[in-house]
């Protein structure tokens, strides 16, 4: 289980700056085998929270526990042996690959590191990815295919937790459907957190949902309950704009 306890974060542009509070005091948990949605407007702190969970940035207060182990306080060198257990998928797949090298190079780099040479070929077949994209550079591959490649790349380390930061918001509807189906099919036994502002998508795929508003979690619960009977103004506003 991945647990976030009282995490807060303020960004400062200089030593004298009053700063911009991005995360208030956030509590959240993500268990293996479930898909959790994190829903909120742009700029409400969703991505910052994800980066804290991945230990890419340090929170001002609070901690993140992975299966009971405090990873926030852990030294980077020690954390390195645990890092492979979490992976993150980004909104723009082109920026998560090396543009100077082929798709094959990017996949090999990841799979060789975990001594799983060439195992992605089988997976590519399962997910209907054409083999000829392996020779191409990322710029020559369509957005949907590239996003599927970046998901395969994440799977190299067989992560327990996947954080998906708007994985389909730049893609069209049919591609979004096939990518979400792919993610659900690999999700068994893994904890997945889907960051999005697409309420329809959350309704469709998430077991539980957290609603974020101006840096705080304002509501949480089972997806159907939260979306059908919103209790806070933040959630109501979010739903109102969507319908």
């Amino acid at each position, binding site marked *: 289980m991945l647990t976030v306890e009282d995490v807060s974060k303020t960004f400062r542009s200089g030593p004298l700056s009053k700063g911009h509070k991005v995360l208030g005091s956030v509590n959240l948990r993500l268990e293996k085998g479930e898909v959790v949605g994190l829903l909120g*407007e742009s700029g409400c702190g969703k991505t910052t929270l994800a980066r804290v969970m991945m230990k890419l940035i340090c929170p001002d207060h609070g901690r993140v526990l992975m299966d009971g182990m405090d990873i926030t306080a852990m030294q980077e060198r020690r954390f390195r042996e645990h890092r492979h257990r979490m992976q993150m998928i980004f909104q723009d797949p082109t920026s998560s690959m090396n543009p100077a090298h082929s798709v094959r190079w990017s996949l090999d780099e990841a799979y060789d590191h975990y001594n799983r040479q060439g195992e992605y070929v089988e997976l590519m077949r399962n997910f209907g990815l054409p083999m000829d994209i392996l020779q191409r550079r990322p710029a020559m591959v369509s957005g949907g295919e590239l996003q599927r490649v970046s998901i395969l790349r994440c799977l190299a380390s067989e992560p327990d937790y996947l954080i998906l930061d708007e994985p389909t918001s730049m893609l069209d*509807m*049919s591609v979004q*459907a096939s990518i*979400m189906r792919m993610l659900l099919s690999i999700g068994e036994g893994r904890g997945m957190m889907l960051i999005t*502002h*697409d309420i329809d998508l959350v309704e*469709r795929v998430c077991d539980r949902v957290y609603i974020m508003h101006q840096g705080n979690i304002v509501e949480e619960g089972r997806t159907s309950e939260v979306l059908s009977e919103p209790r806070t103004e933040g959630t109501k506003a*979010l739903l109102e704009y969507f319908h």
Partner: protein
Amino acid sequence: MSLLSIKGLSVSFASGESTIHAVNSLDLDLDSGRSLAIIGESGSGKSVLASAILGTLEENGTASGQVLFDGRNILGSDEAVLMALRGRQICLIPQNAWSAWDPVIRIGDQMTEFMRCCGVPRSEAPNLALEYLKKCGLAPEVLRSYSHRLSGGMSQRAMVAMCASVRPRLLIADEPTKGLDGRSRTLVLDLFEKVIGDAALLMITHDLRAARSCDEVSVLYGGRIVESGPANEVLDRPLHPYTAGLCAAHPRRGMVPIPGGIGRRTEIVGCVFRDRCVLADHECQGDVPMFGETRRVRCFHADR
């Protein structure tokens, strides 16, 4: 007479030894004060259509047919003629507003420069900028800020404000809601209704919710319009298998992807969608005409 009338427009690109047909004998009419959404997957030819109207195709692209703007064919016109139309008469709201702004010039200065290029007197431009920013629900401070200080939604709204301020007769919006959250998306779409007045709006999108806000919808696949009609009718009761597929891919309608990919079209015989269509048979190998009057569909098997 329609403000914009496209007749038999074809656009192809030379790519090595082969020719890629991006748009194939496309017909389209758009009247003043009306809005039309062009929907389809990435690679269906939507953005190429916009470039062809504006005369900004890549160098390896060739276009044939007619693009009649106000009764005059502007396809293949001199750059001078097109420059007089761009901005003042036909205005493009680009796909990614954030990267369309110059990052080192203040928003206000960019707005006034654009207005002056379109013939607004120097003394009136700042007030006009302020007026349209207000209309678009933005604070006057936006005039003094740089583009990176704005959120995606604000940036997009400021772009709409700039384009609408010169009162063009045709607005082309390329994916105006891409990557925006629900609130920003609603604000941008409401804005179109507010600022558009008697102009015509051509919205290129794959967001079905955005398409619904338009009067009419045309579905583009493989450079051909496969279905068109009033927005709600097309999206609620799609006739063409491709439109039905697009609707079924929505999370609320089953999230079923359309099998196969869109591919690049190097030949233009038969139904463009037949490779991915479950209903395809030998009849689809030949040319498919457009059936119907107000609800038009290009399919032999559509349940009309």
